[in-house]
C-alpha cells in the first residue's frame, strides 16, 4: 500500500504527461487532466494513516503525508477550475490549441515534480523535484507570450535558477558535513540518517549549508527581500498556475527548508535557524502588508498577500515550540485552501471583465453576484475573520508568540490589521458602485471554490480530534 501511494503520486502524473502531450483536442485533454489529478489524489489519500517509513530514497512520515494530501487535493480542485478557465481562454483566442496541449502536459509535470520533492528522503532528489517544478512554472508563466508575460517569466527564471543553484551548493555542503560520519554515497544525503546523526557533524559546515539553503529555498518561498519574481509571475501567468504557485509550490519550498532546519536543530553547536527565520518572516509580513496598498492589479494584490502569509508561516516556524509549529501547520493548510480558492474567483472575474486592473472592476455584486459572494467570503477568510479557519491559526500564532516575546506580538497583530484594511478597501471598490467597463456572462466552476471555503469554514468551527492529534504529532516532529 505504501509503495502504491508513494509511486502513485509521482508516476500517475508522470505517465499522464506523455499522453496529454500527444492528445489532440481540448475537451479530451481537460477531461483527462481532471481524471489524472483525481487518481493522483486517490493515491495520495491511500497514504492516510500509514505508518512512517523510510529508505535511502523515499520517506513517509506524518509531516509529508499531510502535505501530500493537501497537494494532491488542491491539485485536483485546480484541475477542475482550470478546465473552465482554459476553455474561456481558447474561446477568446488568448491561447491556441497547441499551447493548451502543452499547458496540460506541463500541469501534470509540475504535480509530479512537487510530489517527488515531497516523498524523497534524498536531499539531492528533493532538490531535483523543486528545480523541475520551478522550470515548469517558468514556462507556464510565459505562456501568453505578451511582453509583460515574457518579462515576468524571464525575471522568475533568473531569480529562480540562481536560488535553486545556491540550494544545490547547500546540498553539496551538507553532504560534505555528513560524509565523515555516514560514509560516501547515498546514505550521506538521506534525510533520516542526517537528522539522526547530525550531532556528530561539523557545526560550521552545517551552518554554512543552512545559509545557502535559506537563500536558495527562501527565494522560492518568496521571503522578502528575495521575493521580486513572485508578484510578476502570479500576475502574468494563467490563473490556475497562480493558484498552484501560491497554494502549493511555496509550501513545497518551505517544506524543504523545514527539513533542513530539523537537521540543524539536532546539532546544538550549529547556528540556530529560528531567529533568522523569525526576522525574514517578519520582514516579509511587514513589507507585503504595506505593498498591498500600492497594487493596482488584482492578481498582483493577492500575490503580495501570499508573501504576507508565507511570512507569517515562516515566522511561526521560526518561533518554534509545539504550539507555534501547530499554528504554522494549520495556517499553511488554511492559506493554501483559501488562496487557491481566491485565485479561482479572481480568474473568473478577470475573464468576465476582461481586465485585471482594479480601476476597471466595479459593481461586481450587481453584475456577477455569485462571484462577488465567493470573492467576499474568500477575502474575509484570508483576512483572518472568524469563523473561518485562518482566524484560528492566526490567533494561535499570536497567542503562542505572546508567551515567548510579547513585543513581536504587537508587530504581527498591527501588520495583520493593516493588511485587513487593504483587503477591505479593495473589496469595497470591487463589489459596490456602478458596474463599469466590459462585462460578459462567464461560465464559472463554483464547486472548487465553495468546496475550499466550506473546508476552511468547518475547520474554523470544529477541528476533528484525530486531525488535531495528527497535527500535534507533526508539530512535535518539527521541534
Amino acid at each position: 500500500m505504501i509503495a502504491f501511494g508513494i509511486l502513485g503520486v509521482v508516476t500517475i502524473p508522470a505517465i499522464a504527461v506523455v499522453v496529454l502531450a500527444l492528445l489532440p483536442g481540448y475537451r479530451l485533454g481537460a477531461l483527462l487532466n481532471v481524471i489524472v489529478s483525481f487518481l493522483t489524489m486517490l493515491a495520495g489519500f491511500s497514504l492516510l494513516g500509514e505508518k512512517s517509513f523510510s529508505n535511502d530514497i523515499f520517506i513517509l512520515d506524518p509531516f509529508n503525508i499531510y502535505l501530500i494530501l493537501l497537494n494532491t487535493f488542491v491539485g485536483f480542485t485546480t484541475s477542475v477550475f482550470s478546465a473552465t478557465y482554459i476553455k474561456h481562454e481558447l474561446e477568446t483566442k488568448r491561447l491556441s490549441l497547441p499551447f493548451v496541449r502543452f499547458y496540460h502536459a506541463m500541469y501534470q509535470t509540475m504535480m509530479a515534480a512537487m510530489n517527488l520533492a515531497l516523498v524523497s528522503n534524498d536531499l539531492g532528489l528533493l532538490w531535483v523535484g523543486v528545480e523541475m517544478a520551478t522550470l515548469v512554472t517558468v514556462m507556464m508563466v510565459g505562456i501568453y507570450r505578451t511582453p509583460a508575460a515574457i518579462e515576468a517569466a524571464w525575471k522568475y527564471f533568473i531569480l529562480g535558477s540562481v536560488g535553486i543553484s545556491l540550494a544545490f551548493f547547500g546540498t553539496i555542503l551538507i553532504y560534505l558535513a555528513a560524509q565523515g560520519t555516514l560514509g560516501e554515497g547515498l546514505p550521506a544525503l538521506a534525510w533520516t540518517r542526517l537528522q539522526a546523526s547530525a550531532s556528530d557533524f561539523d557545526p560550521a559546515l552545517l551552518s554554512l549549508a543552512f545559509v545557502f539553503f535559506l537563500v536558495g529555498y527562501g527565494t522560492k518561498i518568496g521571503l522578502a527581500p528575495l521575493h521580486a519574481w513572485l508578484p510578476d509571475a502570479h500576475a502574468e501567468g494563467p490563473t490556475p498556475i497562480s493558484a498552484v504557485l501560491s497554494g502549493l509550490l511555496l509550501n513545497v519550498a518551505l517544506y524543504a527548508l523545514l527539513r533542513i532546519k530539523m537537521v540543524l536543530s539536532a546539532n546544538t553547536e550549529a547556528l540556530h535557524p529560528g531567529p533568522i527565520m523569525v526576522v525574514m518572516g517578519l520582514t516579509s509580513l511587514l513589507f507585503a502588508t504595506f505593498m498591498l496598498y500600492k497594487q493596482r492589479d488584482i492578481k498582483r494584490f493577492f500575490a503580495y498577500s501570499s508573501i504576507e502569509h508565507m511570512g507569517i508561516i515562516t515566522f511561526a516556524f521560526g518561533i518554534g515550540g509545539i504550539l507555534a509549529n501547530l499554528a504554522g501547520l494549520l495556517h499553511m493548510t488554511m492559506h493554501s485552501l483559501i488562496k487557491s480558492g481566491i485565485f479561482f474567483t479572481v480568474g473568473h472575474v478577470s475573464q468576465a471583465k476582461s481586465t485585471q486592473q482594479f480601476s476597471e472592476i466595479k459593481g461586481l455584486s450587481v453584475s456577477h453576484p455569485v462571484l462577488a459572494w465567493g470573492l467576499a467570503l474568500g477575502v474575509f477568510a484570508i483576512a483572518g475573520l472568524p469563523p473561518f479557519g485562518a482566524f484560528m491559526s492566526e490567533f494561535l500564532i499570536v497567542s503562542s508568540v505572546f508567551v515567548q516575546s510579547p513585543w513581536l506580538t504587537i508587530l504581527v497583530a498591527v501588520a495583520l490589521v493593516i493588511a485587513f484594511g487593504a483587503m477591505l478597501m479593495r473589496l469595497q471598490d470591487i463589489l459596490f458602485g456602478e458596474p463599469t467597463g466590459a462585462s460578459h456572462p462567464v461560465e464559472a466552476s463554483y464547486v472548487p471554490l465553495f468546496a475550499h471555503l466550506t473546508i476552511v469554514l468547518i475547520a474554523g468551527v470544529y477541528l476533528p480530534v484525530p486531525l488535531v492529534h495528527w497535527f500535534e504529532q507533526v508539530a512535535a516532529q518539527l521541534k
Partner: protein
Amino acid sequence: MNDLAPQISYMLASGMVVCSFVLLYQIRLSSMLDVFAFQAVVLACSVAWQAHTQDSPQLYVTATIALVVKGGVIPAFLRRLMIKLKIHREIDPVVGVGLTLLAGVALAALAILVMFPVTAHAATFTRDDLAFALAVILLGLWMMISRRNAISQIIGFMSLENGLVLAATGAKGMPLVVEISVAFSILIALFVFGTFVFRIRERFDTVDVHVLDRFREDRQ
C-alpha cells in the same frame, strides 16, 4: 598517491576561476562563447582528473557530459542562434571594466575566506575545489547582474553551473543522481532560454533585457 595529484586538481580548478575572470571583461558575444566553451573543457579535465584520483569511474560520465554538451553542443547551438538572430557581431559593453574586475576579485577572496575555515578537516583537494567552485559561482552571479544582454546572462548562468559541477565532483562520492540532474537541468535550461531569447527577439527586435523593464514601468 604522490604530491602531484592535488596540485593538478588545484591548477585545473584555478584555471576555471581565471576563465570566469576573463568572461567578466569580454565585450563581444562570440568571444564570450569561446571563453565559456574553454571553461567547460577545463571543467571536463578537472572532473576527469577527480575521476582518476578518487578512483570513481562514474565521474568520467560527468566529464564527458561537460566536454560534449557544454564544451561543444551548447556553444554551437547558441552560435547558430546568434547568427539566426543576426546578433553575432553585437557588442555588450562592460560598464567600468576596472570596477567590475575589482568586485570580481573581492568575490573570489570572499569565497576563499568563507570556505577555507569551514572545510579545515576536509582533504586538501576538496578544500581547494570547493573554494574555487564558490568563486566561480559568485563570479557567474556577478556576471548575470552586471550584464544587460540576455545572452550574456545565459552565459553567466551556465558558467555558474560549471562551478556547481566542480563543487559536486570535489565532494568525494556524491551520488550520481545529483550529477545527472545537473546535466539534465542545463539541457532544460537551454530549452527554456532558447525559447525566451527567441520570443524576446520576436517582440522587441532586441535581446537587451532593459527593454523589458520599460514595459514594466508603463504597466505600473
